[in-house]
């Protein structure tokens, strides 16, 4: 893209740079602001007088002697026992990602190599399933789960989330596997491999870009879910997101909003790290497979 023909006129380059900067501020400022504010006291973060209080921490210095305070974090993690939900979220998100990908790669691979008519119907039905709002299905789970006595446990929630995630995983991985040449595993079959061996030895080594992209979306689903986790888990098994929503009301009446702010920032931090490491793979994976389907 360095030839003269591809060079952009100056005003166009300037305009797009300006627009990108504007968008960056729009996208990032709320988070930057909240991360910064989470180390202040409430009267600074929610300052009626001037926003400069939140920047310089005037009241924070008055109340704690330093411009930064970890009180919100102490209150959230220790007093409100937020660490429990962090562990639960880690379990749920990891399990959902692993199981979804295992089932999804097998299924997606089979769909991509099948030539029968029913493959088409499976994909369309999966698409319809993807359209069902989570909360409508949750209202179908509750009564049976109470009866079977499996309500409130982490494994139940994990399986439910895996199932809800299957349609999307199947589609993503299907469109990815379709773009992996058939000859690769067919030659392995000719060499005497079974179908599973062909999958393991010929396809698995080249499938990782697509799997990482799909895994990223699965992880986000498990990590970010609110509808399922808030309805299907007991108080002590709660993951971070329902925990934040449930102690929001309690905390506001007690005047500890900063606990919630600190909890929110804690819950966002892992996502920042995740995207920082995987954004390149995300674009690469989408380019290689999903966006062609």
């Amino acid at each position, binding site marked *: 893209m360095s030839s003269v023909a591809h060079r952009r006129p100056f005003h166009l380059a300037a305009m797009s740079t300006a627009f*990108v900067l504007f*968008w960056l501020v729009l*996208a990032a400022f709320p988070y930057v602001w909240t991360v910064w504010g989470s180390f202040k006291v409430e009267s600074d973060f929610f300052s009626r007088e001037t926003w400069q209080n939140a920047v310089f921490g005037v009241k924070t210095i008055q109340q704690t002697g330093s411009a930064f305070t970890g009180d919100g974090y102490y209150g959230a993690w220790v007093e409100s026992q937020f660490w429990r939900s962090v562990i639960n979220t880690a379990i749920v998100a990891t399990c959902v990602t692993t199981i979804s990908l295992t089932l999804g790669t097998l*299924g997606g691979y089979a769909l991509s190599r099948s030539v029968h008519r029913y493959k088409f119907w499976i994909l*369309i039905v999966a698409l319809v399933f993807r359209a069902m709002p989570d909360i409508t299905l949750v*209202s179908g789970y509750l009564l049976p789960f109470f*009866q079977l006595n499996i309500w409130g446990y982490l494994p139940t929630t994990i399986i439910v989330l*895996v199932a809800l995630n299957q349609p999307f995983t199947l589609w993503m991985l299907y469109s990815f596997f379709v773009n992996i040449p058939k000859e690769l595993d067919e030659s392995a079959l000719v060499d005497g491999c079974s179908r599973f061996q062909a999958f393991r030895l010929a396809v698995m080594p080249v499938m990782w870009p697509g799997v990482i992209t799909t895994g990223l979306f699965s992880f986000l689903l498990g*990590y970010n879910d609110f509808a399922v986790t808030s309805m299907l888990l007991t108080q002590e098994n709660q993951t971070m997101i329902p925990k934040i929503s449930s102690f929001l009301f309690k905390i506001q009446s007690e005047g500890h909003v900063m606990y919630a702010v600190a909890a929110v920032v804690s819950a966002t931090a892992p996502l920042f790290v995740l995207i920082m490491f995987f954004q390149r793979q995300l674009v690469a994976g989408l380019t290689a497979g999903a966006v062609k389907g």
Partner: protein
Amino acid sequence: MPHRTFLAFILPSIVAMLLFIATPIVSIVVQSLYIQHDKILVMSETCQPLGGCVKETRVDSEATEKIRREQPLGKFNGFGIYEDHNHLAFLDIGNIVSANAGFFEKVSRLYDLPFYRALVFTLTYALTVTPLAMCLGFVIALAVNAVPKFIKGPVIFFSLLPMVVTPLIGSLVVFWMINAEGILGAAIQHITNNPDLSLKASPTMTWITLICYGIWTNAPFSFIVFYSGLQTVPSDTMESAMIDGASRFQRVRFVILPTLLPLAVFVTLVQLMDNFRVLEPIIGFNAAANATSLSYSIYTALNNQSAQLFSSAAATSVLTITGVIILLTPILIRTAREFGFRT
């Protein structure tokens, strides 16, 4: 691939979907036809030696508990729950339509019915947020594609934030900022010089806030998909368009847009599905007084303080699913047809 092998590979995935997506759909249809048992009342007569006899009715809580435990589904109610005030409300609609009132009053009275209120907001939200967010995402993708290579990494990182951050958390973060004491809320009051102006005060303001928030969180998904798509636009087509003298705008219109069209269908489908289930922003923004969605109605029915209203939640769920299917059928058929051609 032979049927047997195919089945062996895909069975776990199919079983998971059948058990936890197909069965619950059946389950809510059944649940919506039943209603919780009424409280069992007992009549008892207490006679005092001199005062005569007093008849009283009281709730036999033990027997009520027992029958509710034995038959958790409740008693058969047919389509009763669909017709009541909280759902389709045929009776109320009949009354309103035949009432002696002006057109706008009728509309506003219809809007007061809980189900229609939620439906109107859900549809408005899904149908405005989806196209606007896609346009914004497309423009961002074009712009990011044009910036120098070395800043692309950080730009993509920050652009993805509104999408990857949990919806509930994202809405809380914005909610705290537009609070009267938060930076944006205070700034708006300062600029307009109106200390009472609040984004939560009137329904219109709440709707605009929610829709802006929706565009903000949805744009990154369109952006990343379109941006990935832009990397696959064939450069020889682009060059021949340039040789033919196509202007920059014409190149976008006649080369880039057609290449990205299949992607646009995919994004529309996913975004419509996601926006139709809008729930977290309403909780995060504490906006239920001015805007409720179908998902939110189900959520509140399930979270009811006194008793979980299973049949009400189930009925709203069935109606929601019907709505989703009606909304998506055209796009689904299109996808299915396109897909059928290719295989």
